[in-house]
């Protein structure tokens, strides 16, 4: 069985990356956040993890909702597990409910008689970050909002880079009129005020997740194209490319097998910064009310609420705190990657 072996250069880069502790720990934290967000249903949810009812176990977390009648309640809509838990405890018949640590979903409203949201953080009610102005748990909205934002920005990254990298490579490699034509096109395209265009489009039709990714990608691919074009221009003139051509390799093979692997450092360096700008873009669109349709959990919407209700400091503090942590982590990762891949490190001037 062949063992997966990294080439020594790559191993050195990884060692170098790990030695930059700020970046390394940011990566650890960020990975943890991603995993936690992916498994959000298990720890932030208004559905119970386990229900023990009349000698049976139920695991309602995933799958179709269980109507209240399942547990001997008098309604046919989805069971309110927080209420069920209270009832079981009161009845004391050996039935029990295990709720997640944060027993609220991103959409569930926790309204009370004679009191009005937003509610301040309350350890006892397990609203660790308080509630928003509709009575939804801020932590739940943050976690699910993060999940959407991060996958939005990764999706955007993939689409942007797919377009930008291939076009940039082609421009740099083929040069000539092809290059000239696309240069002009990009110059014109990049003068379109993209935020306004997105606002106009999304005020006419409410975009869903993928449509919003595509709309933003229409203008987002430009940045990486310039860089890739320049890098490819440089690589094209290198001896190994000429050698490959002499050996009769096709253009496609040269670009994909020879040039692209040598420019990967550039792409990897830019990626973390693109991720953070994607998060910022989605948040600002949501803030302005032109992002994903309500009631999708979103940081921008929380930010807008925070501004309207300055006195509910926990809303604005939570979302600003979460943004700072995320963006700082991503930026530190990006810096560490850039440093680890910096070719100057291996050059000695003596």
């Amino acid at each position, binding site marked *: 069985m062949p063992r997966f072996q990294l080439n020594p250069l790559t191993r050195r880069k990884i060692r170098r990356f790990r030695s930059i502790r700020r970046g390394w720990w940011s990566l650890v934290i960020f990975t943890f956040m991603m995993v936690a967000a992916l498994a959000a249903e298990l720890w932030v949810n208004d559905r119970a993890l386990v229900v023990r009812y009349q000698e049976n176990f139920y695991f309602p977390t995933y799958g179709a909702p269980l*109507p209240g009648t399942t547990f001997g309640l008098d309604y046919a809509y989805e069971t309110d597990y927080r209420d069920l838990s209270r009832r079981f405890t009161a009845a004391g018949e050996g039935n029990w409910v295990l709720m997640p640590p944060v027993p609220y979903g991103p959409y569930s*409203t926790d*309204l009370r008689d004679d009191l009005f949201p937003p509610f301040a953080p309350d350890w006892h009610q397990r609203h660790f970050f308080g509630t928003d102005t*509709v*009575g939804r748990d801020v932590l739940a909205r943050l976690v699910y909002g993060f999940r959407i934002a991060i996958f939005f920005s990764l999706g955007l990254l993939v689409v942007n880079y797919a377009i930008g990298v291939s076009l940039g490579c082609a421009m740099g490699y083929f040069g000539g009129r092809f290059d000239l034509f696309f240069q002009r096109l990009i110059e014109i395209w990049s003068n379109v005020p993209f935020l306004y265009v997105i606002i106009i489009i999304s005020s006419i039709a409410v975009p869903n997740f993928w449509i919003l990714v595509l709309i933003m990608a229409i203008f987002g691919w430009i940045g990486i194209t310039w860089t890739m074009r320049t890098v490819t221009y440089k690589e094209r003139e290198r001896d190994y490319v000429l050698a490959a051509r002499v050996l009769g390799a096709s253009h496609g093979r040269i670009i994909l097998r020879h040039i692209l692997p040598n420019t990967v450092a550039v792409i990897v360096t830019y990626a973390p910064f693109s991720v953070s700008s994607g998060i910022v873009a989605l948040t600002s669109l949501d803030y302005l009310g032109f992002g994903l*349709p309500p009631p999708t959990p979103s940081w921008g919407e929380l930010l807008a609420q925070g*501004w309207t209700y300055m006195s509910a400091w926990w809303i604005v503090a939570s979302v600003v705190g979460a943004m700072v942590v995320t963006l700082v982590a991503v930026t530190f990762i990006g810096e560490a990657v850039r440093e680890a891949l910096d070719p100057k490190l291996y050059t000695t001037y003596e």
Partner: protein
Amino acid sequence: MKNGAVMPINPKSTKDPDFKAILIFFLIALSLLITACDGDPSADPDRRAETETAKVAASPARRPRQTLPEGIVWQTNDTDPVFASPEAVRGGTLHEALLSFPLTFRTVGPDSNSSFRSAILDNQLSLVGIHPNTEKIIPELATHWAFDDDRRTMYFKLDKRARWSDGHPVTADDFAYTLDFMRSEHIVAPWYNDYYSREIERVIIYDDHTLAVVAARPVPDLHLRIAIAPTPEHFYGQLGDDFVMAYNWKIVPNTGAYQISDFEKGRRVRFKRKANWWAEDRRYFKHRFNVDTVVFTVVRDFNLMWEYFKKRRLDTFALNLPAYWHVKSKTDVIEKGYVERIWFFNDTQQSAQGLWLNLDREIFADRRVRYAFAHAMNIEKVIDQVLRGDFYRLEHGFMGYGDYSNPDIRARRFDLGKVEALMTDAGWQRGTDGIWARGDQRFAVEVTYSLEEHTARLVVLREEARKAGIELELRRLDATAAYKKVLEKKHDVAWMGWSTSLRPQYWEHFHSANAHKPQTNNITNTDDPQMDRLIDAYRNSLDAGQRAALSRQIQEKIHEIGAFVPTFMVPYVRQAYWRWWCLPDPAGTRHTGDLFDPFSSATGGLFWYDAERRTETEAAMKGDHGFGPVTRIDDTYKMPSLR
């Protein structure tokens, strides 16, 4: 907007807050354009108000005079109670805020339909007005009036002292000119062109101060239709193709108490009270319009307005939103009593706010499904737990119209049992996700709305509707986009409200003539022969009693069809004001929508400024001692059904 439902026929009729909000949003969108205009150095080098003599036309050819018919019985009204306070004193400056600067000072033509237009129009008096408490006719520019037996002609005797703000007397020719002006194609206002051609036939002049206005056909409440305002012929003269551009920033002479004195585009507009206003001693104008100056400053954000208000840069602030009244009011200046609050109940036409179901959608073809939808809307929970019990349930779309409102209709309440029964009866079953389904149909409908503030309400409705097995997909669109979508009948359910008028309007909203076609206000596509007959009878009747009876019947029919789920009404105004502003007792009138409206000829200008109290308050603020919080509740005009 051209079919006149969102735009009230009488520009002075009560405006619905939602309508204003739509305009405000529209204006925010267009404010980008303003900035662009500001950059043009040639646009307006001199930013001070241009003098009113900008264009003095040669004296127009005199219109032919006719002989006044015999036997006219002149009426007037000098016996209805006055509603201003004799304690009112003159003086002071009122600072108000605008969300965006108007795109033009014209009141007709492109971009003129902004919320600021009412500030200009309110200073343009009409022939007669409506008493805000008794709803009887009261004099404005005319002192006497008379009805002809043909039920489409009204005679008026003008007040001989009536003057334009540039000193010219107001004459009968100015009213004849209104028709010429409004019918002119140069003003680029098709709706006005149409209205003044089709609804008003002509103006007859008997002498400089006696005239008649003739409607195109006999109509009920004739005085509401033909009490037109004059237009200064000596100012406009002959209109030309350049009207729209030339009159963008002209200050047109007016007849009301205030006139624009100066403005700075994009920033502020200042109105000054006329030194010797011709009408200041008239019975219904006496002790009103007391402040010397009214300044509108642009503050482009509602939250920011609140901050400005607390810093004394604005004098009043509307606290209708529960969050402001209950939470944000817990602030120093209010706790110490430097700012006082008032909760004033009115009894005025309520906007038809709610969920409008599109009957052309297959799912809503079945009446039982519509009823089930209504029973699945937990409006009471929204009122109690989101709106803090401050709003009231709207029972049907036409409350507050006096005799024209049916007091017996009750909106369908949230009731899971009824939803269950109705849906099962209609052949639906709950799917695995708890949502009703039949065949490949699922009871999931899109709700189109536009105001961000309403999201909180809809989120709760959505959660509750899920319990009833109905899925609401919320679609918030920009105000104009939402409005367009709904008018083109592309919605499942529209969450919106209509503006009001003095009498209910049914033909636009419920007659089959407007169903199944775009750009009409029948957004439910109601198409019911019995309804058509009732509406036709209502429109053709000239007898007030019969019309009121028909109106109540139509409301019953609307309830029975069930395409409209009424939501909330706000039969009051709540405002905060700095302590040195005084209000009469009662603080407003039956139809007051804003206690600090400086201009409205019907309900405005009742407040006054007390310089002594200001000195006293400012001294207290310096010494940091308070007066204790003051909240005045005035329920003189509270709707009988709410007591």
